[in-house]
């Protein structure tokens, strides 16, 4: 009955890390296109640009994080973790680049190839992950949120494939304008949002020693969000319920963070706060826009949702997860002298990145072209901060494990 349950099989460090470390490059690329090329708002260029961030940055990180979390949360592992990580990683990268460039430079012939790579990479990831999650013997609130998140990813993938195919083959029909918002809604409020909700149930109490989220929130919120998403396919205004669900979630998480027992103020808290403020503001604007339909409002809430809410949160979490995993893998090989998590990245470098990030969000709202520069700077910093940790890890990896000297006396 308990055979096959392994608790320790965290994937090798390299598996999630390759996802985390490539993500900033997509943001840098996006920033460069914004600054050097610029875009035409009413063309598919915007979609190409957007997906460099949503697929290239957000989805890559989230895929890496899920591979890391599943063994801990659910007690199951991915078969052949490193190989699995590699093929998904490469296909999503190639697919996203083809997608981004194809739309941005209007090379529609790239899109068919992009479609193949994305269907393959995202498809394999989502079906295997869903299967593993459904098999979990004990389904916590987090596991349920993840299940709904991955189901949304599958829905978004199929809707997105339809859109990409219509663009690629130049057959943009009537269905396009209906499928497009549905794809966006499931990708963002389903896949990305529900994963954040589910992971927050675990990481907020865990990283900051706060109370747990309210039992009722944990039990019902993700179903409420997913249910209202589905409903919105038939009745457009149901999406307001979804957004209200997220605003409620944001305010609750802020409340927990403020009452945290670890009083120490660190930069990841700033990232969280920025994320929640963006979420609440974006949500309010989104609801307002449902009744007004204003293009400026739409741009503002989109920036706040994607860059303000999600990317802020991801930066903050990466600064927790990446050093911890490095420390964990080094120490489980028997070393005692390695730097602590706080010594791996200098707090001052984190603060600089936080500033660049904040300016990126603000300038995206006003002057997207200028924002390009700050996005580039912020993501170079993000990469360098994470890369420092990787370097420490590789240094230790090259050393013989102290355990070996016990096993075979020289």
């Amino acid at each position, binding site marked *: 009955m308990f055979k096959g349950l*392994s608790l320790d099989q965290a994937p090798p460090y390299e598996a999630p890390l390759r996802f985390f470390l490539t993500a900033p490059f997509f943001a840098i690329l996006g920033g460069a296109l914004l600054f050097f090329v610029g875009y035409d708002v009413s063309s598919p260029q915007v979609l190409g640009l957007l997906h460099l961030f949503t697929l290239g940055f957000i989805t890559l990180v989230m895929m890496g994080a899920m591979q890391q979390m599943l063994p801990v949360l659910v007690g199951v592992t991915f078969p052949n973790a490193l190989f699995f990580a590699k093929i998904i990683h490469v296909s999503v990268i190639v697919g996203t680049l083809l997608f981004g460039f194809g739309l941005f430079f209007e090379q529609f012939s790239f899109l068919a190839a992009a479609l193949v790579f994305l269907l393959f990479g995202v498809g394999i990831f989502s079906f295997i992950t869903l299967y593993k999650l459904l098999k979990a013997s004990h389904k916590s609130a987090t596991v349920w949120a993840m299940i709904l998140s991955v189901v949304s990813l599958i829905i978004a993938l199929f809707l997105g494939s339809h859109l990409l195919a219509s663009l690629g083959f130049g057959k943009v029909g009537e269905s396009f304008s209906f499928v497009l918002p549905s794809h966006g809604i499931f990708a963002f409020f389903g896949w990305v949002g529900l994963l954040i909700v589910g992971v927050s149930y675990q990481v907020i109490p865990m990283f900051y020693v706060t109370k747990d989220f309210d039992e009722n929130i944990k039990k019902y919120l993700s179903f409420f969000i997913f249910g209202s998403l589905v409903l919105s396919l038939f009745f457009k205004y149901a999406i307001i319920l979804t957004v209200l669900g997220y605003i409620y979630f944001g305010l609750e998480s802020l409340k927990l963070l403020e009452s945290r027992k670890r009083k120490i103020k660190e930069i990841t808290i700033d990232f969280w706060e920025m994320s929640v403020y963006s979420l609440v503001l974006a949500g309010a604007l989104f609801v307002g826009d449902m009744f007004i339909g204003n293009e400026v409002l739409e741009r503002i809430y989109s920036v706040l949702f994607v860059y303000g809410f999600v990317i802020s949160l991801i930066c903050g979490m990466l600064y927790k997860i990446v050093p911890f995993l490095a420390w964990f893998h080094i120490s489980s090989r028997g070393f005692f002298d390695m730097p602590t998590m706080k010594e791996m990245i200098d707090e001052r470098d984190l603060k600089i990145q936080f500033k660049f990030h904040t300016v990126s969000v603000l300038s995206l709202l006003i002057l997207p072209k200028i924002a390009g520069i700050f996005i580039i700077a912020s993501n170079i910093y993000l990469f360098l901060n994470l890369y420092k940790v990787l370097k420490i890890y590789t240094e230790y990896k090259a050393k013989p494990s102290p355990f070996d000297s016990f096993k075979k006396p020289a």
Partner: protein
Amino acid sequence: MIKDYMTHDHRECDNLYAPLESAISEENWDRALELYMPFKNAMLKHFAMEEEVLFPKMEEFMGGGEGPIHVMKMEHNQIRSIIDQLGEAINEKNTQKALGLGETFMILTQQHNMKEEQVLYTMAEQLPFDKEALLEEMKKVEA
């Protein structure tokens, strides 16, 4: 009931750690020293309840070896070693070192507890033995 009790005990340990960390970050070393021992004792007592009573009982049904219980014990050793290093850093009044170790301790412990709460304690609840009696036995353990 084992699950509830032990989950609650995890939170109690967190609650002992949080003020210790605040004292360290304020460089209030007297207070930090004062808070360190009760925190350490609570952790050791918790580990002892698991290693001396709960785990051996579970192993009667599940067998020992390289399974989940073995991993939990290894993680206990890792955490014990950090708690000791944290004590040294407090004695040396080394704020950065102590905060860094504290951060590592926290995340390591949290992910360990998570695995116990989500999987191991749930398994314990399903095994056919007298939980109430075992819980009583666990409470009697000395750190």
